[in-house]
């Protein structure tokens, strides 16, 4: 199938619902496999850090969740662009599906970072480059969420949140840059995130597996949500009726 026909077919909710199934299952299986391997590896087999000891194991969930939190927001920005340029309804479904997942992942990154900070930095919270940009990310998510809550009309809800997601995505690099810049100026030297001096493979491999696993998991959940939302929106069509039995 050419890229162009794929694009056109994406406009059809029914086609999407069908094609999403195998992908969802694939992501689900990959997530189950990678996460179970990754968890055991991270918790049991990976060596403790020579400075932080076993507190370092938080790394294996902290970094993947932080990465995913950012990826999902950018994904929403792209979906917003698609909604505006091609008026594809599925894009709004994607935004709606990504929102809660991204929000919880950001919260997880913040929480795991805080829990990691207590034994390593000696404090639950420190204003530092990455903490600030993650916090801002959370606020960006909450902003879209609050806006969606406030708008009743589904069509307009989609448009408004798409616009906001685009504006936010344009701003993300600026925010990240400014915050990093600020951090180099203000941050007491003791609080810099560990600059890993060439982490050994037995430490970064499990992180890689966990990250891939979490990405698969997120893919699974988002597709599942999108399917549910498509059903909700297409509730009156005959194919949905047939499918529901």
């Amino acid at each position, binding site marked *: 199938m050419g890229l162009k026909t794929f694009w056109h077919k994406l406009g059809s909710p029914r086609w999407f619902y069908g094609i999403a199934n195998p992908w969802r299952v694939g992501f689900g299986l990959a997530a189950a496999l990678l996460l179970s391997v990754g968890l055991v590896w991270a918790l049991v087999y990976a060596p403790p850090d020579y400075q932080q000891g076993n507190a370092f194991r938080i790394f294996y969930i902290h970094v993947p969740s932080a990465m995913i939190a950012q990826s999902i927001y950018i994904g929403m920005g792209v979906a917003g662009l698609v909604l505006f340029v091609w008026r594809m309804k599925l894009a709004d479904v994607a935004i709606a599906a990504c929102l809660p997942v991204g929000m919880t992942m950001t919260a997880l990154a913040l929480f795991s970072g805080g829990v990691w900070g207590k034994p390593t930095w000696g404090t639950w919270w420190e204003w530092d480059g990455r903490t600030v940009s993650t916090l801002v990310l959370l606020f960006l998510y909450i902003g879209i969420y609050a806006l969606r809550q406030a708008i*009743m*009309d*589904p*069509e307009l809800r989609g448009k408004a949140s798409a616009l906001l997601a685009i504006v936010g995505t344009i701003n993300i690099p600026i925010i990240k840059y400014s915050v990093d810049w600020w951090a180099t100026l203000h941050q007491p030297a003791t609080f810099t995130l560990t600059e890993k001096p060439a982490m050994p493979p037995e430490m970064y491999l499990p992180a890689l597996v966990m990250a891939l696993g979490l990405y698969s998991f997120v893919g699974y959940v988002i597709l599942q949500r999108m399917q549910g939302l498509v059903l909700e929106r297409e509730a009156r069509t005959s194919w949905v009726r047939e499918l529901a039995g």
Partner: protein
Amino acid sequence: MPEAIALRGLVCQRAGRDLFAPLDLRVEAGSLVELRGANGSGKSTLLRTLNGVHQQYRGQFTIDPCLFQGHRLGLDELLSPLENLRFAAALHDRQLDEDGAFAALERFGVVRYGLTRMADLSAGQQRRVAMARWYLAALPVWLLDEPFTALDADGQALLTQLMVEHCATGGVIVCATHMPVPIEAKTLLSLAMVA
């Protein structure tokens, strides 16, 4: 001569629901269309659609440049009628001279309030200022939503005459109303609610 307004299977929607059966209509220059329908049948929504601010609809339509008057007057309460008229002209990139504004306000009987804040005018007086705005707009199509609201007998007569004149000079008016417009030559467009 192409028509000023053409609707081809136009159906307005609110919250994803169709409001009325598809409309097909061609309106020639110089016509008055009286838009009738029960409360909630979608008259206001149709006018907003034709004006381009409501974008949830099926079907197609074309329309010449138009002036819209909804339930909200589109006049700034903190400015005077004179200033409002001047700003309305500026929006259309035209300059309004004092004489023109004065004559328009005079025609609709509110010239003595020309310098008062809109907020301090009575409901009918505000409507009359709005009429002055239409009069000065120089736009071919007028979309009016219940324009007879709040006008006294004199004001209604002024409005009727304005409408007759506008159509006589080749203008088109679509007028949503619950009160029959006292003009003979008109097209009726009735909206029937979809259950």
